[in-house]
């Protein structure tokens, strides 16, 4: 029984890991085809030398950093406020943003932006993508921050208030320093989600705001160059490392 369970688990682990492992392995293949011909870095050279990929990566970084900054600031304050006293309406709206399918978030934002643009002379571009990313990253920061706040002793802030600190000062000097690991974990998670998003981004991006996932999607659909494998391997490793750091911080 026990051995059978272990064997089954090994099979499921193989299912979970072999697809990505194979993808990464073949990113080092010398051949253009899916037949192993020897170790080579040619696809990495091709990927790093590609101007379109470089520009898309720069866009993704910019969008990810901007969206993360806004979502982290707003989400941290929101989490703190909800911890002080629940607000059914805000919690409901956050839940709504969490369960809305990405495609619905994307088309509703597209419809909204187009409607706003009728009154203002704006166009789809980097700013609309950042706005979209803030909306779906926000809730993840709030969840990370609130999980940490629940483990804190409310007496700490009460003591600060009793000693004459203003509420702002009690937050700034007592609670926030204890909250940093969760804020950083939430920020890293938000960045990962933003950096990876294709569905919403593809709908609200303009001509000048093509992101890395959009380029990878187009390359995957065309299915020609193993350079996609190389880019994929880099992304998987980088995002995986970020999330491991985020997990470490969350447990700290």
């Amino acid at each position, binding site marked *: *029984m026990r051995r059978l*369970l272990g064997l089954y*688990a090994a099979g*499921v*682990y193989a*299912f*979970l890991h072999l*697809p*990505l492992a*194979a*993808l990464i392995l073949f990113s080092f293949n010398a051949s253009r085809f*899916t*037949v192993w011909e020897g170790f080579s870095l040619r696809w990495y050279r091709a990927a790093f030398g590609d101007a379109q990929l470089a520009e898309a990566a720069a866009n993704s970084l910019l969008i990810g950093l901007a969206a993360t900054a*806004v979502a982290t*600031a*707003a989400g941290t*304050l*929101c989490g*703190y*406020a*909800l911890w*002080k006293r629940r607000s059914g309406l805000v*919690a409901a709206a956050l839940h709504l*943003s*969490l*369960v*809305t*399918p*990405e*495609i*619905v*978030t*994307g*088309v*509703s934002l597209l*419809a*909204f932006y*187009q*409607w706003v643009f009728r009154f203002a002379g704006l166009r789809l571009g980097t700013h609309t993508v950042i706005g979209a990313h*803030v*909306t779906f990253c*926000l809730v993840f920061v*709030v969840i990370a921050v609130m999980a940490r706040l629940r483990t804190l002793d409310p007496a700490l802030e009460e003591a600060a208030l009793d000693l004459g600190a203003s*509420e702002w000062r009690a*937050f700034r000097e007592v609670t926030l320093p204890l909250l940093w690991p969760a804020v950083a974990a939430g920020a890293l998670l938000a960045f*990962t989600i933003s950096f*990876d998003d*294709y569905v919403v981004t593809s*709908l609200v991006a303009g001509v000048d705001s093509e992101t890395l*996932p959009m380029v*990878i*999607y187009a390359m*995957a659909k065309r*299915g020609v160059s193993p350079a996609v*494998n190389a880019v*994929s391997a880099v*992304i*998987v490793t980088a995002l995986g490392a970020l*999330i*491991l750091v985020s997990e470490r911080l969350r447990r700290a």
Partner: protein
Amino acid sequence: MNRLRAVFLLPSTLVLCVLVAAPLAIILSYSVLTRGAYGGVELPLSLESWLRLADPLYLGILARTVAMAAAVTALCLALGFPLALFLSRAGNRKNLYLHLVMLPFWTSFLVRTYAWMFLLRDTGLINTTLIWLGLIQEPLSLLYTPGAVLAGLVYGHLPFMVLPLYAALERMDRSLLEAAADLGAQPWESLARVVIPLASPGIRAGAVLVFIPCLGAYLTPDLLGGSKTVMAGNLIQNQFTHARDWPFGSAASLALMAVILVLLAVWVRREKEPLL
């Protein structure tokens, strides 16, 4: 306190009102307008888009979406339950094994879906390996099939099933199993009559966490499926891009949201476990 709290809530409330609530209100109003000549919407008001949802073509897509989500949920349960059982008994290696479940999950969803294209396409790893082994002469059509979508969705959502199952099994009192064994229960009997009933909150949570995202799946059927595997998400995307029928796309989006919210409401009422 109230003033500081109000100030703190301001930025997120602004984001939620402007970029979550307002867009939903916009598509709600678009869903009762008429399709414009060059995309967009026009007056007069009309319920035509909502009525069109009852067309057998779209009911078929809905049925296919629900069937696919149900199949993914069942497969995730079949794969995930023994794995969660294994994890809950892994002793001091628990954390390592748990991380191994989460690791692929933490990386890019797009890349994970692409990995399946790499495996399944005609010149992909599976076909070239089978040809090299001499098992087949011509490549099998694996990509752009319902099976490919099923594999991709199970691969993408398995951890959503494993984690709640593991949490439920972890909480289980092991002495109950000893009691069952002492009273003469065979292992499969204690599994069916002790372990599974105790794990049922985890099974329900896992089922909801897999089923609901699968209802709204778009990227996986788009990349791994063909024209015969159009799911609700693809239908919505198509209305806003190629078909340029925003009123109908809006109605379909809201119908999908309604299905999801009803399911969640039923589950939340039953479990009463707040997330925030």
